[in-house]
């Protein structure tokens, strides 16, 4: 997978979450995503950026335009040095929230993207990466 361009935003406030959404929307427009694809990836980014802020205590969001075998897509990576997720399977379960949320963000982001990777351990922080490919 080749990275064509990369931009990052530090996420410390809820205004930064808005900025992440705007950057993701810009990237998906640049790639010529359909309105449905745009909406899906922007919404996924909103979920992950907010988790980064609320549970991770802030971190960085990286937005990349990537290519793989003639396909192009948008890769979003969210990294924090927060408390980490003790039980990833539980965190991904629909309806589970350790806070006051609906518990649908992590699972929802996974369903809204094509590739989904999560790397997290207690005390180590959390890194979530998703890709949505442009429809051919």
């Amino acid at each position, binding site marked *: 997978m080749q990275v064509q361009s990369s931009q990052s935003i530090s996420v410390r406030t809820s205004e930064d979450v808005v900025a992440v*959404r705007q950057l993701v929307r810009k990237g998906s427009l640049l790639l010529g995503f359909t309105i449905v694809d745009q*909406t899906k990836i922007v*919404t996924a980014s*909103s979920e992950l950026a907010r988790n980064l802020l609320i549970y991770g205590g802030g971190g960085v969001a990286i937005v990349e335009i990537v290519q793989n075998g003639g396909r192009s897509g948008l890769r979003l990576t969210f990294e924090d040095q927060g408390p980490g997720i003790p039980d990833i399977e539980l965190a991904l379960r629909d309806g589970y929230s350790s806070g006051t949320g609906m518990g*649908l*963000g992590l699972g*929802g982001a996974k369903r809204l993207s094509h590739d989904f990777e999560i790397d997290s351990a207690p005390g180590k922080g959390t890194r979530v990466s998703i890709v949505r490919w442009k429809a051919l």
Partner: protein
Amino acid sequence: MPTSQLARLLQNSFDQLLAEWKSSQFATVGRRLSASDENTLSANSREFLTLFRQGLETAEVQDQQAPGWAPIREFLVALSASRAKEGYTPSETASFVFSLKEPLFKLLSGEIKDPVELNREIWNLSRGLDRFGLLTMEAYQKSREEIIARQQREMLELSTPVVRIWDNILAVPLIGTLDSNRTQVIMESLLEAIVSTRSDIAIIDITGVPTVDTLVAQHLLKTVAAARLMGADCIISGVRPQIAQTIIHLGVDLSAVTTKATLAGALQVALQRTGAAIVKGHGAGR
């Protein structure tokens, strides 16, 4: 020099001091003052000098908390508040008190011959006036903050108009990002409006909301539930196809809520439910 003597000196040279202070203020403000601004400034200056002289009769300049200074403190707070409202800059506001130093010290140096005593008097007065200046700035700052907070509240209200579009039917068009602060205000004003208009149906239009994530969905569902407790049903309109698809992928269950793609569609449902209907027909005048 005892403060009572200073008070007497101020009394005897009152007019001259006032004139000099006013002209140095006009100079520091730097911009052209309207006739009414000039009048206000003259009146303010006269009042301050009078209060200052009266204060000196009973209180030490250094002892700012003395009861004798209460009137001047009140006066300065009120003056700063009105200057903040009228758009005076911070330095214009601060210079009101500070610009009194020069003419006042000039007056003192004409009066006190002993340089050591003169120095001490100037130092004392200077510290006292500095404190009045700081009080002025604090009050100015506080008023500015109040003005900004009020404007923010007004904007929050402005951005969430609850409109009565029909007998018993309310509509709230939501526009922009729904950060929790605003959503709270929207929810409250919608619920209040439901009660005050005795409406049965509220249409929440999200056409202007670019992203509906789980946080927005949660706020919407809470609003719908609260409205239901008040006896009103909600219809969510502006659920475009891409939003509907995304909500389903998120796993949010909106099946308990009536949703419509357009505001017109929602209005139609609302009218049917309330028993009213729009009938196509000829205009009344024809």
